[in-house]
């Protein structure tokens, strides 16, 4: 399956919410979409493109915005596809995929607590890896494990 095939199926369903399909080495392609169309895209990808198996949901903190990416696998095409959407850092939320793929449940819980991206209508958005009530989101770039001066090697021969 090539990026063109993805575009052909997804473009009519999503319209302008599909921001583009790029080639990605080792995958069917990388689909960029607007978060408003998340559920439509998930359904289209699962039902029309037969990517029945959601493998991974993750988030990246790009400081000015955040990115949510999904990796899904199709048994018939024997390929992965990467779906990604950008959400603003101030209002980081996206529709949950767990209604479409139940496997998204824990991945989204993890993404929520580590990268601070809220998944709307998630059935069970609780802390998974960090303790309940943990106030930080460790995978944000603003969360430092070392202070920079600790990280630097001590100066020698002063």
């Amino acid at each position, binding site marked *: 399956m090539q990026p063109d095939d993805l575009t052909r199926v997804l473009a009519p369903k999503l319209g302008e919410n599909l921001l583009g399909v790029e080639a990605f*080495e080792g995958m069917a392609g990388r689909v960029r979409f607007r978060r408003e169309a998340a559920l439509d895209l998930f359904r289209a990808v699962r039902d029309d493109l037969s990517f029945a198996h959601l493998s991974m949901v993750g988030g*990246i903190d790009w400081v000015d915005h955040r990115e949510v*990416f999904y990796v899904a*696998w199709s048994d018939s095409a024997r390929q992965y596809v990467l779906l990604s959407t950008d959400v603003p850092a101030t209002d980081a939320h996206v529709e949950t995929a767990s209604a479409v*793929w*139940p*496997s998204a449940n824990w991945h989204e819980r993890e993404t929520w607590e580590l990268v601070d991206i809220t998944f709307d209508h998630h059935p069970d958005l609780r802390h*998974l890896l960090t303790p309940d009530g943990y106030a930080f989101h460790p995978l944000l770039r603003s969360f430092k494990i070392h202070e920079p001066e600790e990280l*630097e090697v001590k100066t020698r021969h002063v």
Partner: protein
Amino acid sequence: MSEMWINMGPQHPMTHGLWNLRVRIDGEVVLDVDPEMGYLHRGIEKISEDRHYNEVVTLMDRTCYVAGLAWEHLYILASEQALHITPPERAQYIRMTCEEFQRIGSHIMWYAAFVNDIGLMTPFLYGMRDRDLVLDLFQSFTGARMTYEYMRVGGVRNDLPPTFTDQARKVLDWLTDRFREYDQLCLGSSIFHKRCDHLGVLKANDCIAHGVTGPMLRSAGVKRDLRKDRPYARYDAVDFDVAVADGADVTARYLVRMEEMRQSIRILRQTVDWLEHHPGPVMAEHLPRWLGAPYAPVGREGYLLKRNYAKGVGFSAVEEPHGEAQAYVVNEGTEHPYRVKFRSPIFANLSAARQYLVGYRVADIPPIMGSVDPCIGEVDR
């Protein structure tokens, strides 16, 4: 007895690690389960952001401590894609050899722990005895028994010692005999069948819906193996079969794992032959300078002039002993990865716990969870 919640874990013989399975029971029947994770969360993804590309390898051994080399392979494949590096062919074969031996080691470890869960202590020690041989092999070329730190971006740290091929063949012969013994102890015993047949059934549709992969998925009759479907390294050049069973129960998972070990031996005989006859470099020639082969000139910020190397995103998926592991590495042109995200197969397999535990008995939980082969290090990362 009325309904009650009991905590199986975080310190419980069944857990094989640190996690808590909260179980609601009525008498001995399981009504509901709620896995609680996070007791072993070490923030490996976060620490990786502060480390040099090669230094992340030391963390990979600690994600899954029984399948360290498979995780190193996973991370290295993603990093190489993100950094646009191609390793030499010999390095790829060495990595395959590592991964398959690691699969055998991990499955033996699983066998040992799983059979111990159903009350049979003997195979535990047989398994440990035989896994030691695999560890001896690893020690002979990586220098460590569990935390190998062997693979590097662009290849592997050092070449195999000259005696490796002979010794590997001896180990493979020994293991082939031992696997027969394992089967006699388990499949030959009707108590084993009484304990494991029709237990923890998770059908193919549920597996796919809940993201379950690996031996659990293959035991449900789905013939999916990334080594066949999406060959990485040089898995396209070796000949093997995918082990599939149709029971979808604990016995089927046992059968799949045992067969996988036999297939691993088949692969290993081919790769060992190849390695014997094809000497060559084990590191890529043209690496970004700061990766500087295993020898890293300067690893810390402050001494490295910021330079813009080609950015890239790497994604790799590896058929780890427990299932499909995936890594997503974002390279922003610095010496540290910008973001590393791992997908642990057991993470997904455990998230479906409710599907395969509810309705069975308390005494069935250890064999079922044992057949999932939880390795909490990689779930919590």
